[in-house]
C-alpha cells in the first residue's frame, strides 16, 4: 500500500523535490552576498549616522530574486495542495480507477489513511524545507527591514508555512472528494486556499491578542501639519512612529481625556497659524508650526496601538495551530464523505 502510493506519486514527488533543490542552489549561491552587503552597511552606518533601512544598499542586490522568492514561498503551499492533495481522490473518481483501488483486499479507510499520512508528510516536509531555506536567505533582508509583522514577511519567516501546506493539502483532498474532477478540484483548492489565507491575515491575525496602547511624547512623533492656503484650514497627517519589528495598527494625537487633535483646535490654540494660512504660500510657516507644536505637546501625546515584536513567535504558533486544526477538520470531513457519500 505504501509502495503503491509512492509509485503513483513518484512523478509529482520527483518534480517537487527537484524544483526545491534548484531553488536551494540558487539561494545558496546568492545568499552570502546579501549577508555581506548588509553587514558592511551595518558596520559603517553608525559612523555616518544614517542606519535607516531606506539607505541600506542590500535592497538593491538581486532585486529580481527579492521579488520572486516571497512569491514562490507564498504560492508553494497552494501548489502542494493542488498536486499532492487533489489527485488522491479526484483522479481515482474521475478515471473510474477507484473501482479497482477499493475492491482490493484493503478497506478504503485504510487506503485513504495511508495516502493522507504519506503524502501529507511529503507535503509538510517540502514546505518545511522551503521555509527553512527561504528563512536563511531572506534573513539579512528581514533584519534590515525591521518589519517581521509585514504580511509577506510574517508568512515567509518562521514555521507557519508548515500549517499552510498541511491545510492546502487537506483542502485539496477534500475538494477532490467533493468535486470528483481533478481540474475543478485544483481550481477550488487554489481559490479556497487564497481566500482562507487572506481572511486569516486580515481578520484573524490582528485579533489573536489585543494590541498594546502606548503614549509617546508628541514631539518625538513629529506629526506633519499641512496648511491648505486656499481654504484657510489646517489638516493633520498622522504621526510617523517607528518601533522596530512591531505591527503598528494606528497612531493618533490625543489629549489626556482621549480626544483627538483636530485642525480646528490647532488653529484655535495657535492663532498665528491662521493668519499664515490666509497669507498664502508666500509665508514661511515652519517656525510658527514648530512653536505651535511645542505649545500643544504640553497637553497632547501620540497614542500608538500595536503588536510588539515579542509577539512574533506566539503569533506564529497560533496561526500554525489554526491551519493545522483546519487541516484535521478537512481530513475528518473527507473520511466522512468517503464513508457516507462515495458509497
Amino acid at each position, binding site marked *: 500500500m505504501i509502495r503503491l502510493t509512492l*509509485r503513483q506519486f513518484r512523478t509529482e514527488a520527483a518534480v517537487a523535490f527537484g524544483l526545491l533543490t534548484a531553488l536551494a542552489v540558487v539561494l545558496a549561491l546568492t545568499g552570502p552576498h546579501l549577508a555581506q552587503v548588509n553587514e558592511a552597511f551595518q558596520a559603517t552606518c553608525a559612523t555616518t549616522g544614517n542606519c535607516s533601512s531606506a539607505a541600506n544598499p542590500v535592497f538593491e542586490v538581486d532585486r529580481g530574486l527579492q521579488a520572486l522568492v516571497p512569491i514562490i514561498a507564498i504560492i508553494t503551499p497552494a501548489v502542494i495542495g493542488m498536486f499532492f492533495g487533489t489527485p488522491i481522490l479526484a483522479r481515482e473518481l474521475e478515471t473510474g*480507477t477507484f*473501482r479497482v483501488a477499493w475492491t482490493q483486499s484493503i478497506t478504503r479507510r485504510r487506503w485513504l489513511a495511508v495516502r493522507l499520512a504519506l503524502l501529507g508528510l511529503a507535503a509538510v516536509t517540502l514546505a518545511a524545507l522551503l521555509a527553512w531555506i527561504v528563512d536563511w536567505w531572506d534573513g539579512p533582508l528581514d533584519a534590515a527591514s525591521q518589519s517581521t509583522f509585514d504580511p509577506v514577511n510574517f508568512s515567509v519567516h518562521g514555521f507557519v508555512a508548515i500549517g499552510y501546506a498541511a491545510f492546502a493539502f487537506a483542502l485539496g483532498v477534500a475538494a477532490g472528494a467533493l468535486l470528483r474532477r481533478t481540474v475543478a478540484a485544483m481550481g477550488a483548492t487554489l481559490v479556497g486556499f487564497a481566500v482562507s489565507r487572506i481572511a486569516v491575515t486580515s481578520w484573524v491575525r490582528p485579533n489573536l491578542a489585543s494590541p498594546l496602547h502606548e503614549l509617546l511624547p508628541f514631539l518625538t512623533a513629529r506629526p506633519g501639519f499641512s496648511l491648505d492656503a486656499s481654504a484657510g484650514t489646517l489638516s493633520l497627517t498622522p504621526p510617523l512612529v517607528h518601533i522596530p519589528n512591531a505591527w503598528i495598527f494606528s497612531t493618533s494625537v490625543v489629549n489626556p481625556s482621549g480626544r483627538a487633535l483636530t485642525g480646528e483646535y490647532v488653529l484655535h490654540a495657535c492663532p498665528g497659524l491662521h493668519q499664515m494660512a490666509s497669507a498664502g504660500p508666500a509665508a514661511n510657516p515652519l517656525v510658527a508650526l514648530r512653536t505651535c507644536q511645542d505649545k500643544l505637546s504640553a497637553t497632547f501625546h501620540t497614542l500608538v496601538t500595536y503588536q510588539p515584536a515579542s509577539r512574533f513567535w506566539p503569533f506564529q504558533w497560533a496561526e500554525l495551530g489554526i491551519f493545522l486544526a483546519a487541516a484535521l477538520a478537512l481530513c475528518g470531513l473527507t473520511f466522512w464523505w468517503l464513508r457516507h457519500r462515495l*458509497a
Partner: protein
Amino acid sequence: MTVALEANGLGKRYGRIWGLSDCTLAIPAGRVVGLVGPNGAGKTTLLHLAVGLLQPTTGSLSVLGGRPGTTSAQLARIGFVAQDAPTYTGLSVGDHLRLGAWMNPSWDARLAEERLGRLGLDPRRKAGQLSGGQRAQLALTLAVAKRPDLLVLDEPVASLDPLARREFLKGLMEGVAEHGASVILSSHIVADLQRVCDYVVVLVDSRVQVAGDIQELLATHHRLTGPRHARGALPGDLLLIGESQTDRQSTLIVRTDGPILDPAWTVEQLDLEDLVLAYMTHPREHERRPHLEIHR
C-alpha cells in the same frame, strides 16, 4: 443450494433517483451466473453493492455470508472487474501486477504472470497504450490472481470486438475452471452468456423476472404457435410468459413442466435469447418472488 449472494428488499438511492429498489434475489454459489436485463435495470448498482463499492440505502445484502466492503477479509474474497475495465493509464502492466501483489495477501503471482504470458502482454507497456481487449484481460488478471471465492464482472465484454470478446470469455472460463470460483457476470449480450453461464437471472426494473439453471429453463419453456381461436383453450398448468397475435394466429411463450399434447399447437424449443427477451418484453410488475413457480 449454497448462496453466493442474497438480497432482501435491497435498495440504493442516488440523491432522488433510485438505482435499485426493493430487490430480492438469491444467487447460488459454485455457478457461473449471468445477470441480464435492459439498461437501467439496476445491474451495475447491484454489482457495486455486492463488491462493497456502494452501501445499501434500504434492505440487506449478504455476499458469501458477509456484509460487502466492510472488512479487508471480506474484500479479499471477492474479485471485481468493473465496467469498461478501468486501469491506471500511467502505470505499466507490470505495475498493475505489483499493485495486486501489494494490496492482496492472497495474491498468486505465478498465476498472474502465466496469464499475461499466455496473452502476450509486455509487462513494460503502459496500461494507457493497451487496446480495449488487452485492458479487459489485464483487469481480469488482476481480479483472478487475487484468488477470490467469487468473481464479479460488470459488462466485461460490452466494449470489445467479437474476437476480443471470445478471447476474454475463454480466459474467464479457464480461470474459473482452474480455481472453481463462483462467477456473477452481467451483460446484455445473451449469446455471450449462453456460451459461459450455466445459470441466469433476468432483472427488469430491480425485479427478478426469472432465475434458474439455463438447461432447466430451456427444457421448460416453449413457443406455441396455433390458431387464434385455440388461445382460450390452453391447459391450466401453463404459465403464459408472452404472446403475440396476428389476425389468425397466436404465438405464445409458455412455461410448463409437462408435455404439451394439444394438437392445435405447434411446439418449438426456445433458445436463451428468446427466453430472456420474452421476460424482458413482458415484465411481471407485481411478481416479487425470487423464483417464478408454476401454477397448478
